[in-house]
């Protein structure tokens, strides 16, 4: 068990490509941190630098307080689980799990005990004498976990370990990995591009974009207080509704333009976020999560409303995802999941299944304006202070 400190960690590839740019993060002992971001954001490179599989161009890495920047991977006391399992196909499950112990010259009796114990934790006991080729994807993944666990390392590194599994198995393995990590209490860094995985597994989630750490915080904080437009657009599914807007501070309220329409925010909002006052009459980016957009007919208590045309309804059973045209275009925050809103209507709401909205109709939606987010148009930073 150990802390992991990344101090201005930078990776520059030959040719000058900066894959990771001055990433700083301090991970507590026993903490489960998830690196998440779109393809090419540098999350795997950052993990591989911690593992020692990529040379660190600049910056300092400390594990357990000891500098590891130039230490050989073997001597970092870390174990890694790879995306493609990276099992040794010619060895049985038992030998795969025992391999790191064999190299560490652990006495045979102890080695057998530890392999057996690990197999029990991972429910692999009955497969110990099979070769990886005779196992299912989930079982292979557990063997890869076993090979990492059996060493009792200071840090676990996991590079998209579930991405090759089918959806059902992924959900199961997600909870398994979380359970095992909690039981063992080993500091873990987990890389994924799947935000659901990130949000459900991590004690903290570090969002990366273009090699730059955007925000690292608890999942709930990332969701409710995104630091910038990228995080706001990346975290949450469907993504946050983001549109260019302007505000006007009036006597009784703050008027927020939504295309040709407007909604009013209570003035108290300014007490919470005084910086917003300086944007009076200025262009900015406004955001509201689909969860805070309701079918007005079902929510008479909410008075701030917009009129919109229903372009598409996705009836999921437990909810209805409504794509609406309220007269705004979606603000393109680079890196956000654009497929969320292929219709380009710019506005999505999550309605209760009782909603009677019909595609093609014009309807009224109610907004929980207290959950509105504002971002600087030029920098993309959240207006929060």
């Amino acid at each position, binding site marked *: 068990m150990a802390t992991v400190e990344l101090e201005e960690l930078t990776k520059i590839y030959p040719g000058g490509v900066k894959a990771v740019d001055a990433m700083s993060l301090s991970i507590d002992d026993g903490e489960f941190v998830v690196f998440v971001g779109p393809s090419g954001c540098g999350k795997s490179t950052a993990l591989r630098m911690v593992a020692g599989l990529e040379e660190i161009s600049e910056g300092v890495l400390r594990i357990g307080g000891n500098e590891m920047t130039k230490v050989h*991977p*073997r001597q970092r006391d870390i174990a*890694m689980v790879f995306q493609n399992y990276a099992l*040794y196909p*010619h060895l049985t499950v038992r030998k795969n799990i025992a391999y*790191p112990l064999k*190299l560490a010259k652990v006495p045979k009796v102890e080695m057998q005990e530890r392999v057996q114990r690990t197999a029990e934790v991972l429910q692999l006991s009955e497969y110990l004498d099979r070769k990886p080729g005779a196992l299912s994807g989930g079982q292979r993944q557990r063997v890869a976990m076993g*090979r990492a666990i059996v*060493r009792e390392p200071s840090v676990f590194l996991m590079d998209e370990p579930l991405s090759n599994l089918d959806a059902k198995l992924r959900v199961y393995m997600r909870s398994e990995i979380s359970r095992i990590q909690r039981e063992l209490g080993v500091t873990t860094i987990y890389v994924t591009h799947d935000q659901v995985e990130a949000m459900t597994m991590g004690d903290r989630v570090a969002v990366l974009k273009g090699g730059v750490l955007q925000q690292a915080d608890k999942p709930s904080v990332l969701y409710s207080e995104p630091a910038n437009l990228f995080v706001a657009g990346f975290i949450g599914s469907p993504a946050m509704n983001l549109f260019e807007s302007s505000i006007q501070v009036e006597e009784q309220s703050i008027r927020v333009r939504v295309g040709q329409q407007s909604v009013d925010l209570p003035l108290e909002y300014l007490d919470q976020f005084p910086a917003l006052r300086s944007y009076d009459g200025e262009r900015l980016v406004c955001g509201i999560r689909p969860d805070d957009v309701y079918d007005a007919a079902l929510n008479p208590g909410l008075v701030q409303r917009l009129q919109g045309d229903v372009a598409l309804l996705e009836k999921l059973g437990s909810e209805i995802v409504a794509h609406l045209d309220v007269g705004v275009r979606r603000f393109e925050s680079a890196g956000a999941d654009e497929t969320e809103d292929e219709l380009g209507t710019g506005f999505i709401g999550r309605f209760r299944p009782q909603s009677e909205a019909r595609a093609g109709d014009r309807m009224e939606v109610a907004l929980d304006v207290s959950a509105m987010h504002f971002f600087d148009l030029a920098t993309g930073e959240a207006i929060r202070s």
Partner: protein
Amino acid sequence: MTNIADRIENLGSALEPSARLRRLGIGRGAAWLILIAILVVSLFPFWWALRTGLSTNGNLFAGDQSLLPVGYTDNNFERVLGTASEAEILESLGRENTGSFDFLQSLKVSVIVATAITVGQVLFSAMAAYAFARLKFWGRDKLFFLFLSGLMIPPIFTLIPNLVLVKNLGWLNSYPGIIAPFFFMTPFAVFFLRQFFLGISREVEEAALLDGAGNFRTFFGIIVPMSAAPIATLSILTYITAWNEFLWPLVVARAPERQPLTVALGQFTAQQPGTSPDWSGLMAGTLLAALPIIVIFLIFGRKVVDSIGFSGIK
């Protein structure tokens, strides 16, 4: 709608079962014919060698072109193995034995030479291939392509320089002299294995590295066992090539006790004044010399074929 239905019906009648069967039958028949032709062309020389080996020399030259042995005798095989009596030699050869060799000694030389070359070449080629595929060092790819260009140099070009070198080393008529030029690696073997190693998931090696294995342990403990199929293929191909090597041992191994079978068989082609070559002896010797390779191929042939088409590990 009617139009589409008509078209579907027409399509169905165009491919009615008897027509399809007929077409399939013609195709299969043609394929069988071609395969049988290839088989006959491939196996006929073996049969002709066996037919000649089982004939007596005297009858061979009598002009009978029968496909079956002429004047059947197994004395030629006994002669090659050195178990024939003088009377039997006279019967099969039609004269006294003027050229003979120690088959078992030459077999031993062939086995030692082919085995040493196979072990050395596969080991060093695999190590070089792994280095070219995975290790990072300056000028790696340029060096590989330079090495690969060795494929374009005809072996005859290196014959004289190698001979001079081996002579200066005092290795004429010795195992090291016969083995040395082929012992380390060939561009083909390195190329063949490098392509395979490139297909192995890098993550497996990285996992081994994190598990605590160094380069050598990763190579011998993980990569080599994972590459068993292509290494076996290369070994068999190398063994066959080494077994069949003729020119180099002919040049460096003049002493009979160091001559592999390919060279020693030349005894039978030596023509004495007033005699004709000992074709039946030569064919019997050739068949016996080819037997170990045929057996190896029969046992491992499927593996070789599978492995040549093997492209990597998922």
